[in-house]
């Protein structure tokens, strides 16, 4: 592949969850961490967030949820509640009840554990 428009952008529009636009990043984490297949991973995320499958796949619903709960968005506004990156991952690890390697390493290096 050498064509992000023909590849990543096309997959993103027609087939993928869209990462932080919905809960694609969280579902992906469950695949990596717990080897869950797609339906099981979506069900797990939906249950942990108290939402339906339709809601965790919807960009408008999830933009509100992610903003309210500090899970990180595709856009970043300059106010205190707006999370992105490491601070969002702290919250995602907690709500999904999983260990995120980069969060654990960050805690070690910051003297938080």
């Amino acid at each position, binding site marked *: *592949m*050498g*064509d*992000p428009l*023909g*590849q*990543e*952008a*096309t*997959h*993103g*529009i*027609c*087939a*993928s*969850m*869209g*990462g*932080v*636009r*919905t809960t*694609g*990043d969280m*579902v*992906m*984490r469950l*695949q*990596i*961490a717990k*080897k*869950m*297949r*797609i339906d099981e*991973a979506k069900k797990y995320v939906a249950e942990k967030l108290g939402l339906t*499958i*339709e809601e965790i*796949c*919807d960009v408008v619903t999830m933009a509100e949820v992610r903003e309210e709960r500090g*899970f*990180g968005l*595709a*856009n970043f506004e300059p106010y205190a509640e707006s999370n*992105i*990156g*490491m601070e*969002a*991952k702290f919250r*995602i690890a907690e709500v999904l009840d999983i*260990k*995120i*390697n*980069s*969060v*654990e*390493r*960050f805690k070690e290096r910051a003297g938080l554990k």
Partner: protein
Amino acid sequence: MGDHKKYFTRMGDGSIIYMTEEEIRADIKAGVEDAADRGKIAPLTEEEMNHIYDIITMPGGIVGVDPKDAIVTSNDSGSDKISTKCCIPVDRSINAMIHERVLGADSVDIGLEDYNYKTVKGVAKREAAVLKRALNYTTMPLFYGAMPNLGFYTKPDGPIDNWAVLLPEGKIKEAMAAQEEAVDHAVRDIVFVAEQMHDVGADGFQLDTSGAAGDADFLAALKACEIIREKFPDMGVEIGMAGEFVLGMHGRLKYNDVRLAGLYPHHQVKLVEQAGASIFGAVVNTNCNATFPWNIARVCTFIKACSEVATIPVHANVGMGVCAIPMCENSPADIVSRVDKCLIEICKIDGL
């Protein structure tokens, strides 16, 4: 059967062709039969073949799936595409942010432009620094990725006699021994790099294009994966394949008593599971001289068989020249989106 209306589609090299309903259906059937015969797997049902036909002939440039059926994406050298392939000078950690917030990726990997673990070993700490920088500023999971690429261990670039030279000379035993020695070198290098990436917090580790140099190459990926999962259980491993079956460059290598040469995706995935990997990247080759209907039907037959027996997530590899994506650098969205829809709705894949 059918009318004489001709539908727009493409060859495996991406060139435009027009086909009648009868021609499309005949090629779908032939593609299914080819995969079933080669893989000794069940053919697709009539209903599934009809569904492929419907997707191929759907009006519109781009087709899609129901949002509830959307899957997730992983990459190979994803964070390197914008800088190396598109020649836009951006740091790979920024590249990862672009994938997250502009392209809507569900994950991406940081990888060196010379995408193999032998090269990475020498600069592993520097590579880990790039990954750490990206991990601090992205929310989605990040992999570190490269290829086992056993060929890099042969002379004059590496320490081992080249089996591709030894084999034509009839030095079979020497060629086999050379490949076995290369496996040991590759496993050591891969595990060393994995240690550096785990240390900075990698979510996952990508062993991409495994089997590119044949069965020994695949064995190196399986062995390395086993060690990585044991040493770093909190870092997942994705093993992505190089081709639809494992080339028997050695021919006698086994993993857990299973001979590797000649394995198709539905058998490869079982060994990948045994090695402890989190995700399997399945590949079916695109035939440039065949039509898209033939290629996608063949792909769906193989990938459905793989997905049915898998207990771990299956990410179908949909880069240039694999899984019915045409062999051309600039991918046509009409075919890419139809491939995605077929793989999700017929093969029940977990990701791309």
